């Protein structure tokens, strides 16, 4: 690119100066205009601007030299130089604007994308649907002041059964097919163990929940798994009543399902509660018509619950004459199945991402 020699054109020649300040400025303006026309990019324009208007620029120089003139000349020249300056400033500004304009047009014409092209395939991950529901329920209960606890998967017979009022040879042991370890311990069959450990640690009043994995030695089929998830809840204080239990269950269910669900409470037998209840909800998968999830009954046992048995309180060093409480256990897997209409519990441990990744 041919560069312009500004120094030469606007040289500090006294005669030229004389000419500039005393005569007509149109020549200079014409010269300047010619220069400006030759400027081909922003960089050259900036250089020209510095040469004319910068600290050591030509026009700035002219203004400085005004001081050497007589007052009369000074006034006349000053006026002229300032006229020249405004003229130059304006012309440069216009040139600048047209450059920006041109560039913008060029960019707009050349920059383009193919919206149908998928180049950056960075996936969005997700939590397991059971975790999602678990956290959702943890949040509901935390907001109501419940503390979240956990415990070991391998448990003693004492914690899993004895402390829950299920002595050896009790028929209720049949209700849960237990995996025993060779060392005499067992895999917890319910999260009620968290309750037991909670009572041993906390002094009433307290409100706790305990979500976690549980294990049953069951034949695996569409509605039975050897590993699934429960969420245990317990509240102990003076004078806790059945009416309180029902209240919390209703709050829980309306929060989980975010809609009206039909429920029924009926007597249920669990050795660790007295009285004990089964809370059923209308099967959401088949709306009560009967399907494999609800075993054709239309109702799904969702939640065993009840008032904590005095023996259980005693085992937890709590005086049943002073305190009472309620407890409940929620099957998280079944809850997820109902929410999404999943008809096979085996998906949960399949690690099949075609299943898991639907829950983003």
């Amino acid at each position, binding site marked *: 690119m041919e560069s312009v020699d500004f120094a030469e054109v606007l040289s500090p020649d006294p005669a030229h100066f004389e000419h500039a300040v005393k005569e007509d400025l149109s020549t200079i303006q014409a010269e300047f205009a010619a220069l400006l026309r030759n400027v081909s990019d922003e960089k050259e324009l900036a250089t020209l601007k510095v040469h004319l208007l910068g600290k050591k620029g030509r026009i700035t120089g002219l203004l400085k030299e005004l001081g050497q003139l007589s007052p009369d000349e000074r006034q006349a020249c000053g006026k002229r130089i300032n006229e020249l300056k405004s003229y130059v400033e304006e012309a440069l500004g216009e040139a600048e604007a047209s450059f920006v304009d041109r560039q913008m047009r060029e960019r707009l014409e050349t920059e383009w994308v193919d919206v149908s092209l998928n180049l950056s395939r960075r996936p969005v991950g997700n939590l397991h649907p059971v975790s999602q529901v678990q956290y959702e329920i943890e949040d509901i209960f935390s907001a109501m002041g419940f503390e979240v606890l956990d415990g070991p998967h391998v448990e003693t017979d004492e914690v899993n059964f004895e402390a829950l009022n299920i002595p050896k040879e009790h028929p209720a042991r049949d209700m849960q097919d237990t995996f025993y370890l060779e060392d005499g311990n067992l895999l917890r069959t319910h999260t009620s163990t968290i309750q037991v450990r909670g009572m041993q640690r906390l002094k009433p009043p307290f409100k706790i929940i305990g979500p976690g994995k549980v294990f049953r030695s069951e034949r695996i089929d569409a509605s039975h798994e050897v590993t699934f998830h429960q969420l245990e809840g317990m509240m102990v204080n003076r004078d806790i009543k059945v009416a309180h239990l029902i209240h919390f269950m209703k709050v829980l269910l309306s929060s989980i399902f975010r809609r009206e669900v039909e429920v029924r409470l009926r007597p*249920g037998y669990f050795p660790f509660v007295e009285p004990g209840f089964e809370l059923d909800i209308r099967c959401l998968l088949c709306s009560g018509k009967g399907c494999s999830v609800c075993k054709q009954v239309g109702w799904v046992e969702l939640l065993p619950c009840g008032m904590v048995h005095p023996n259980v309180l005693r085992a937890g060093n709590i005086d049943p004459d002073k305190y009472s409480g309620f407890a409940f256990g929620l099957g998280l897997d079944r809850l997820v199945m109902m929410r999404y209409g999943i008809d096979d519990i085996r998906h949960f441990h399949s690690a099949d991402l075609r299943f898991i990744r639907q829950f983003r």
Partner: protein
Amino acid sequence: MQISLNWIRQFCPFETTESPREIGARFSLHTAEVEHWSIRGSNLSQILVAAVLGVKPHPNADRLTVVEVDIGRGEKRDVVCGAPNVRPGILVPYAAPGIVVDGHEIRETKVRGVLSQGMLCSEKELELSVDSTGLWELPPDALAGTPIATLRPDLRDVILEVDNKSLTHRPDLWGHHGIAREFSAIYHAPLLALKADDGLANSRGQSQIRVSVEGKGVGGRDGFCRRYCGLQIDGVRVSPSPDWLRHRLAFIGARSVNNIVDVTNYILFELGQPLHAFDTQRIEGAEVRVRRAHQGEELDLLDGQEVKLDHEDLVIADARSAIALAGVMGGAGSQITESTTSIFLESANFAPARVRRASVRVGKRTDSSLRFEKSLDPENARTGILRAARMVLDLCPEAKVIGPLKDLAHEPAQTIEISTSAAILTRRLGAEIEAREVRATLDRLGFLVRGDTGGEWKVRVPSWRATKDVSMREDLVEEIGRIHGYDQIKPFAPEWTCDSPRVNEHRRLERTAKEFLALHCGMSEIFTYSLVGAAHCQRFGLDPQSHLKLKNPMSEDMDRLRQEIAPMHLEKAVENQRYARSFGFFELGRVYRKKKDRRQASDLPDERSHLAGCISFEKKIPENFYTVRHFVLSLLERLRVADAQVVPPSEASIKPWAHPGVHARVRLRSKDCGQIYRVHPAIEAILGLEGDVILFDLDFDALFESRQREIIYQSPLKYPTVPFDVAVIAPERVPVSEIQEKIEKAAGKLLLSAEVFDVFHGEQSGQGQKSVAFHLIFGALDRTLSGEERKEIEERVMEALKSSGFPLRQ
């Protein structure tokens, strides 16, 4: 258990306009879960008594006959029939065309060329029993043309099926009379008592059978038998039971055997008391002993199976050997046969735990054992045997009870009394129920309430609830609550101070970690089983013996607790590669190891939480490892785990399934806490993995321990910082961290950060060499660095690099 509403109404004539479904639902809400209900005999009003007038052979079929029947009012029909027992003179059920029988509509149609005007029915076709051997022969005094429903109103019934599990705690609900008591309380209807013919207990004569019971009491492991009642009846005639008895048993799913066995079953389903009938003549030595079995003693059960007994089992024995497994099943040797003329009835109360154990051990959960293990009311032993004897006498008019009832009671029935009041009971429910209603409910359920209705009460628990079901106030709360109806209780919140719950930091960190991996790293959370098999362990080079084993596994491939998560992830990666090549998943799960110094039985194994992940990439390129490395390090940063370092592996840190070269150890304060690695090429080949599979595994509990709880704030630097880039040549396998350490040491405190921004392998760096470029930033908290300071640090850094054998690259 199946419940016949006709049978219930015999004890409790309750009135209702509810449908069977509604009755079932109500029973579920107040007592126990009704799983199914069915209506029986709804077509019997259309099926008529028909008299067989004549039977002719079918012209075109050997096995068929053409039967002429009188269906009343002189009307006659010809029906083609295949039943072997059809003969003139008998009365049989007749279904006219248009009537639905056993799900099929009867049509007037030609059968092999002969017109058949309806159908003659067997009991099975009328769904009365399983008998399909021939036509149901009606009593000879029935009138032709009479609807069957008029002849036998008991055959129109509703059967409810109650879930046995929901009766686990209720010994009294294992017979119709107990269920009827519930109906009485639910529907406010009267309950008729079960009467026992006490006269029979004092019959004349002398039975030759001697009865003895070894051991004492019923409780604990040593408990045997709380009560044993025996009664000899001579002159019985074993024959099929009358229709009403056969049908009643069939309706509730029981098989009719003969009149004697059917009587014992009838009482079992009526009262819930199991009975057994021995053939008196087949009791050796005329002796009945209740004793423990001899170890290894053998017994042929009446279902044909031979069992080997255990010393813990309780048996009924005669002078020679065991003749019944107590409470479970009788023996074949002493069972009732067609030729039996004298029976010895047994009605006992065996120890629940002993019956349960024996029945589980020999694999026979019988109607009897199911009841005994629930702790039956000892009073029922006597009531049951006397009611059974009465029935036997009614069915066999020539029969005679020989001698007084043998009633060996070792333990007097205990009485339980509970002090309470209506106020206490309703307070626990949180419901307003009038004291009168509370008292009435208890009355109907058989509780004896003493005291003023509005004041303190002494509540006596009836014997059928006192064996272990009801013993305290809370039990009475349940009785009131369930009969009143839980849906009648108005829920409300308890008073509670508003305090914020303590936060479970571990769980919070778990959640943060999972969400980070999902949202930042694009991975999906999976669950895998905690149980693995020996083959799995061996496949991945782990010692199966070191794993914690299950005593009662379901299968060989799930018989021990895992010590590692990653191998399962590799298997899951294979499965997922069938559908996709590029994916990532993680799991926050536990691993289990035997405790090293296990002192007592109650010591639990070591359980640790691990956060493991697996990412499958399309192509095998070095960047993949660095991607996962970045995921792990940014995760640790997010979890505020301080002092984490990624260093080369040690021999011990390399798992058998891990690539030893593409492998890093994660260290926390000089302790190993995880690895990042590519799968070993050998495992890759065995499993058939494709692409590039990189795994990581972090000891999450260790991360939790070293997390920094709080953010420590520092104000942003007030003074300008100075960048400085430097590039060196280094041998290919020298870790960049080694070079960086030299820089850090030389630069000292004024080095604010050092980052590698380029690693270059090529001709310029030379064979086996690489060029590494660092971007350094110098600065101080309290001043602007002077030109000289800058220069000096830069020189120091460059000098240190050169003298360490890393020439500078210009």
